[in-house]
């Protein structure tokens, strides 16, 4: 099985350790991983701002970079959802449709495709799980609290395989953190207030780390934690699943 590693632009630039952990996790699971070096961004920042019409070259690049792989895996539910819902290229719809089916978020890939049953990772800490909305409500990586339906969470199941980890519970288990792409600067006041409230819920339940499957949400929460001089740190789920 040949897997293409799709690294979101902000992870590439600011959080390379998350991409490294993702790469190592995939390698450990026995698949052949390729990293197309000409990748940039999925185009979501433009599209969510109302400029989907400016994402054509990003779409072309994505097809060029990833068409050859059996699966495309990324440590970001949000970027994966964008590709799944909005990748369009005129006259190439058949190829594009395949890509939209093959693109998977990391925890989704490990759970559904690899069907991982155990993980050799150790992380003896109290951890709060932030369910990022696009992964949860968009990709259905976890049950949503609004629905009258049985609970499940792909992230939680994977984290529970990690030695020594203690997952804390939250008062609001799936409230948005307020990042929201360009929302975080365009609606700065509400965005920050949402982030502060999320952080407070984790701190109230004595989290040492906040984890999640979207680094963008964690980047926003980290910005708030650091401004508050908090000891609580953020870590992408790939880093915990790959912790030695």
């Amino acid at each position: 099985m040949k897997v293409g590693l799709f690294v979101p632009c902000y992870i590439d630039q600011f959080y390379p350790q998350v991409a490294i952990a993702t790469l190592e996790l995939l390698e450990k699971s026995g698949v052949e991983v390729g990293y197309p070096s000409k990748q940039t961004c999925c185009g979501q920042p433009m599209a969510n701002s109302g400029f989907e019409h400016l994402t054509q070259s990003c779409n072309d690049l994505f097809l060029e970079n990833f068409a050859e792989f059996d699966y495309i895996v990324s440590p970001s539910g949000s970027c994966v959802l964008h590709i799944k819902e909005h990748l369009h290229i005129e006259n190439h719809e058949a190829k594009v449709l395949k890509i939209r089916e093959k693109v998977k978020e990391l925890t989704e890939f490990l759970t559904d495709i690899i069907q991982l049953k155990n993980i050799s990772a150790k992380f003896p800490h109290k951890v709060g799980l932030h369910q990022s909305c696009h992964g949860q409500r968009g990709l259905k990586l976890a049950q949503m609290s609004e629905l009258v339906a049985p609970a499940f969470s792909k992230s939680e199941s994977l984290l529970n395989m990690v030695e020594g980890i203690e997952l804390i519970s939250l008062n609001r288990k799936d409230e948005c953190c307020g990042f929201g792409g360009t929302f975080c600067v365009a609606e700065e006041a509400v965005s920050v207030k949402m982030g502060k409230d999320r952080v407070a819920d984790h701190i109230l339940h004595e989290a040492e780390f906040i984890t999640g499957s979207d680094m963008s949400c964690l980047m926003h929460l980290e910005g708030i934690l650091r401004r508050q001089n908090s000891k609580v740190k953020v870590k992408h789920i790939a880093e915990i699943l790959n912790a030695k």
Partner: protein
Amino acid sequence: MKYTDSKDHAELSEQFNRDEARVDWHDKTLWFIREKRDKAAWQILEWEQLRETASQIKNNVLSNLHSYLLQFEKNAQQNGVTVHWASTPEEHNELVLSIIQKHGVANIVKSKSMLTEECHLNEYLSKQGIDVVDTDLGERIVQLAGEPPSHIVLPCIHWKKEEIGELFHQHLGTPKGNADPQFLTAAAREHLRQRFMTSKVAITGVNFGVAETGEVVVCTNEGNADLGVQLAEVHIACMGIEKIIPLRKHLGVFLRLLARSATGQPITTYSSHFNKPREGQEMHIILVDNGRSERLGSADFRNALKCIRCGACFNTCPVYRRSGGHSYHTAVAGPIGSILAPGLDMKKNADLPFASTLCGSCSNVCPVKIDIHDQLYKWRQVIVQNGNVSTTKKVGMKSMSFILSNPGVYKVSGAVGRWVIKHFPFIVNNKFNPWYKQREMPKAPEQSFGEWYSKNRKP
């Protein structure tokens, strides 16, 4: 009550957030209602099936609206009701005025109706010398305060009881400093009773218009619609054309969903069916379009017409809870308002589809399964395509698109950006950067993943 402030949602919510304790209070009050809704929904094992059924009934209504409306009109007329059609708010308001004037009345009572808010009826009538009293307690409070409602179901949810005590002291003469809810409710009741007794005309909204029978159904907790209509000589029911349901038995689906979604109650205290005028009474139904039939023709946005105005999307919305209803500067606030308002005035409401993180919680609580967050995304595209966007943003997006379209440029820009943040942090860490105002910037690593990969893995 119209909004006259020209500030956009971001500016108005920034103002709202200056009092953080109040934001916390507002957020918790509404979250409490969201949790009540969850508990009520979990009492019904077939909840998701119920939502799906309601959604399908509404889909059918929208696909056959023309024939259901004519059926409704015919049946209502056979019941002795006069049916009027209004294509604009102006036509609606003029119709209401002409009925009132025919009866030579100068003061009327109204029970909560978001449609008359949408048409700005109170303002129009007061200019014509007609005194309108809103009889729903929450609605009366905001009316006394000279404000529009901040929520479609809980119009004064942004008011604290102490503030209501002060408002009643000023307007109704209650003792200063008395903020006991029971006492204040009794005072309002006394005050409203006098108006009920003397008003010859009563206006109500409509929750459901049943095509099969020509009756209208109004859901209230206070019984004010009943009292107003039963005491008045003339009943005017104002109804958006999308409020039609085909059969009376469909109420078995919608009434189960409406109050549970709205407030977590199993059902509203009163579900009043108005079929025909009692002897000597006149009953009018005004069917209002105001952009609805145009909306019906739009594949991307027609689903918004399925809305039954429960307000569940308000209560669950993390942005609404922390920005308050008035920050949406439109009669219907919250997520549903943000997809309805651009259809009424795109330029004025161009900010609203951006007042969301697209978290999707609204679509999940919606009892008729409107794809609210997907429509927010689609409105953003339409708004930008129509030029309702600042030049700064346009230029910014174009340069972003240029960088991300060229892998070489992207690599260089990334490296330069990280180098700048590392060596000259003040260039980004300043007051012109909205990120930095209340958040630290991410630390810039020595190398990008791409650079690491080329050193550590074989190509």
